[in-house]
């Protein structure tokens, strides 16, 4: 019963997914983690129930009624005064009610199970990541590793990732479809999201809340890695990253796309289209939240690496279009 709807959709979607995406996973119908897998199941469950119980009868009966009782067919029974039947009334109300009750159970169960704030069950401690939404790029901070990145969210496969999310500018929404839920990022506030990748792979990441001209370029790659690869990646970032000092952060905070930011950063800032930073303080994330909340431009020195004294910085710079496309 459930599989009917499922096959309906799968047969439409899967070829599309397989044919063109290469190795970047785009969709929760092609889930790469437990959250997305549960969401896919939920999706098909609801869809299947509705395909059979809601759409099915209507799609069969409406054409039948229309044809059977067409004006020209004088053979069909005509009852112009017939306007009520207790039995049919009861069915019309109770049918949908029963469906809704069933669906409500599923809904209640999964809404609690998949609450994005809820830590995922795992025998490993989650990897902590702090995410700051800037205009047209996401900054991922690994507080325990002291590094950060833009354009790349690396994560060890099989280990949960626990994210804290904020925005240094307008409202945004962090979303990695193949792994699971999206959630809003808002200035001065911290939302949370728990995800996990089952296996190594590359997953599309994006912002889904419109935030201006660079919106469509605010993509990133979430990359699941083996634990060893992840450690190697961290080492690599530590070795080759740029220090996230006041001046760099000021550029990051400007209203610019990732590509424009790379052009603006001095020297060879990247080798693969992404940006990597070292010397990232654990105090940076709360400092940004607090500064946004206070409407302050200054971050405390303690939150920054190698603070550069002669440059006045403004974390609030988004408005001053100065830092935008050079």
């Amino acid at each position, binding site marked *: 019963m459930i599989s009917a709807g499922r096959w309906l959709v799968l047969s439409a979607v899967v070829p599309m997914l397989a044919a063109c995406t290469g190795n970047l996973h785009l969709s929760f119908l092609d889930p790469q983690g437990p959250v997305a897998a549960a969401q896919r199941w939920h999706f098909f469950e609801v869809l299947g129930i509705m395909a059979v119980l809601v759409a099915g009868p209507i799609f069969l009966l409406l054409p039948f009624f229309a044809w059977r009782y067409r004006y020209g067919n004088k053979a069909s029974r005509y009852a112009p005064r017939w306007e009520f039947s207790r039995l049919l009334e009861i069915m019309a109300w109770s049918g949908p009610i029963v469906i809704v009750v069933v669906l409500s159970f599923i809904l209640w169960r999964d809404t609690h199970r998949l609450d994005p704030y809820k830590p995922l069950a795992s025998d490993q401690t989650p990897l902590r990541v702090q995410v700051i939404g800037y205009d047209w790029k996401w900054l991922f901070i690994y507080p325990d590793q002291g590094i950060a990145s833009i354009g790349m969210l690396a994560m060890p496969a099989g280990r949960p990732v626990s994210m804290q999310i904020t925005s240094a500018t307008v409202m945004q929404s962090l979303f990695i479809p193949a792994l699971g839920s999206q959630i809003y990022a808002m200035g001065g506030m*911290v939302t*949370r999201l728990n995800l996990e990748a089952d296996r190594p792979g590359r997953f599309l990441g994006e912002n889904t809340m419109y935030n201006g001209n660079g919106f469509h370029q605010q993509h990133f790659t979430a990359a699941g890695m083996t634990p060893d690869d992840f450690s190697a990646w961290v080492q690599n970032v530590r070795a080759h990253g740029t220090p996230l000092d006041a001046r760099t952060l000021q550029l990051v905070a400007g209203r610019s796309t990732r590509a424009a930011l790379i052009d603006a950063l001095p020297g060879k800032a990247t080798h693969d289209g992404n940006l990597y930073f070292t010397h990232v303080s654990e105090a940076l994330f709360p400092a940004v939240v607090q500064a946004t909340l206070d409407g302050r431009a200054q971050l405390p020195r303690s939150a920054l690496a190698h603070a550069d004294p002669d440059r006045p910085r403004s974390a609030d710079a988004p408005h001053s279009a100065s830092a935008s496309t050079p």
Partner: protein
Amino acid sequence: MSAPLSDRDQARRREFHSYVWGAGLALVLTVVPFALVHWGGIPRIDLLVTIGVLALVQLLVHFRFFLHIGFRQKREDLQLILFSALLLTIMVSGTIWIMASLALRMTLAAQP
């Protein structure tokens, strides 16, 4: 001018008394919470509840004595007022419930 004069006088007296009663009750219901807040001495929560209850009572007093809302109305009129009250309750309490939950889960201080 069909109603006999004495009836009109009676009606007028009755309505006048209604206004006086209303004003008197409203005065009491105003003075009490102001006095409680001004001179204090009651725990904050109790005080808030008292203020709320007195405000609601005063609201009813105004409806009853100044706006003359009662159950003598035609049904549709009373329906209008009750329906509005229902929606107002849904909208205001829903808003406060939602915003409270959001505030609770999103401040920096609430982080683990």
